[in-house]
């Protein structure tokens, strides 16, 4: 993703404005700072289009950028606007990411990013909410009360990345054993560092 060349799409995605126009707009860090141009904002989050999206879904898919504080507000606004189903919720650990991240300029980059995909069945539109989550405090509010289908997905993100979802009904590991130490999908969790349970054969000739 090339952030400098990134374009932003407005809600109808009919016209696109270069991201440079948006550079001056404040990011969604504080509640009162939402006065950016409406073409680049939605539910109080900065909107960008999906790069490389194929023709059938073009204009029907957009990306919203926010952070841990703005997340719940963006999510509830999206639900109120007709996004009736949570399709996917996952996370990315950007610890070892060398390339530009494709975030709108001025938007703080954090180590973790939780990606929540929503769908509006009425209009057939999809949005992706990319939430920046800091490494010091890997926590986010849960969207269980909006879409209870997030329960297993949030547990999976907790299990794999150690991001805790506040007010989740059952914040526990789901795929790994309950007493597992470490978070496998983090980039500093090495592949194959698990001690093998087999013992060396005693009768080696």
């Amino acid at each position, binding site marked *: *993703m*090339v952030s400098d060349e990134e374009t932003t799409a407005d809600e109808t995605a009919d016209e696109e404005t270069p991201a440079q126009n948006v550079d001056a707009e404040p990011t969604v860090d504080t509640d009162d700072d939402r006065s950016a141009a409406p073409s680049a904002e939605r539910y109080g989050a900065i909107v960008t289009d*999906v*790069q*490389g*999206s*194929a023709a*059938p*879904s073009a204009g*029907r*898919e957009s990306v919203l950028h926010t952070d841990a504080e703005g997340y719940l507000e963006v999510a509830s606004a999206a639900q109120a606007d007709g996004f*009736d*189903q*949570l*399709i*996917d919720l*996952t996370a*990315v*650990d950007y610890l*070892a*990411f*060398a*390339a*530009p991240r*494709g975030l709108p300029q001025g938007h703080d980059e954090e180590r973790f990013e939780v*990606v929540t*995909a929503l769908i509006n*069945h009425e209009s*057939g539109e999809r949005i*992706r909410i990319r939430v920046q989550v800091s490494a010091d405090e890997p926590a986010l509010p849960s969207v*269980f*009360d909006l*879409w*209870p*289908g*997030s*329960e*297993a*997905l949030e547990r*999976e993100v907790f299990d*794999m990345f150690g991001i805790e979802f506040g007010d989740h*009904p*059952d914040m*526990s*590991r*789901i*795929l*790994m*054993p*309950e007493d597992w130490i470490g978070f*496998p*999908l983090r980039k500093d969790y090495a*592949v194959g560092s698990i001690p093998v349970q087999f013992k060396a054969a005693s009768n080696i000739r």
Partner: protein
Amino acid sequence: MTAERVLRRGHDSAVLRLSEAEAAEIGNDPDTPVDDERVLLNMGPSHPSTHGVLRLMLEMEGETVLRSKPVVGYLHTGMEKQAEQLTYLQGPTNVTRMDYAAPLFSELAFSLATEKLLEIEVPERATWIRMLMCELNRMSSHLLFMATNGMDLGAVGMMIYGWREREEVLRFFEMVTGLRMNHNYIRPGGVAADLPDGWEDEVIRLLDITAPRLDEYDVLMTGQPIWRERLQGVGVLNSDEALALSATGPLLRSTGYAWDLRRHEAYLAYDEIDFDVIVGTYGDCYDRYAIRLNEIRESMKIVRQIIDKMPAGDYRVQDKKVTPPPRVRIDESMEALIHHFKIFTEGYKVPVGEAYASVESPRGELGVYIVSDGTSTPYRMHVRGPSFINLQTMPHLMKDGLIADGVAIISSVDPIMGEVDR
């Protein structure tokens, strides 16, 4: 209709939110009275009706299931982590092992996501071959469901019949891809090989065999009073609840909600095909059974249209960046040999960015989210497994039902544990 019951958090919820450690503590504390009426029962992970290694923690009162918790992870092998080590060319080999009953769909979703990042368009014939193979795969997956659903409910003969018909499809897969399962056939840029000579005859033979046998299923199951008694009104979900729980596929359609990505987000060339989206009415196990049975018929209808419309041309994109040279060129050209070697050892670089592509798998929306950092391996690859997410409906479907109905419900959700645990 309301989704209120799936939003509950406390003891009145259908979901048993109890950890292993807490469960082990029950009855150990002499000061806390034990509820004699309620029993915690483990079903699985190794149980004939749990389709692999699903374990259910059930809170029972007599034979009635109160709360339950699907315990998963027994098949977790870190395939998403593994994907970060494999090149985009090796990617389909990895994802094809997730949903082993419908492997081509995982390959397709992975390839579509990669192609979005590469911004390449696959040739028309490749698109139609993909569609043909996926619809046949939908048939084989649903036939497997017919077999296991029959077996779970006591129609043991059905197991053999379903397997028999599925094998016909797999035989065709073997002819095209070389393997019955885990094909690695759909790859970024197209498919691995063109269809063999005489494939039309083989597919028509397959369809001609299957059609009358589906009618036999109707005699054996659909119209049978015992079959109906076992399934009708069992495991009921309404549309709002299904949407709230992120359920997709036959599970969502059984509630009367017409949503099929082939129709509503027509990928591949589904907009040029005439087919019906099958929906249910009551959202019970019977509807889910009937939807899958009729989806086999729809898939057969689609396959017949594909045979008529199959275009000529390339089966993979002629982009030297992603496509290895033809086998014959390797013998005569050193450059072709180097090119071939480079593609299979280093792979090809994929532009920086992230992409999500989804397809309608037999179990629901199968999505692949790839984040690329410009190298030849994905920086992160996530699979939205419909089995994993649909599993969340299970406690709600089982609540206040009998344990025998629980078997019917597990079967009708049709989870593939390879995809649940990844």
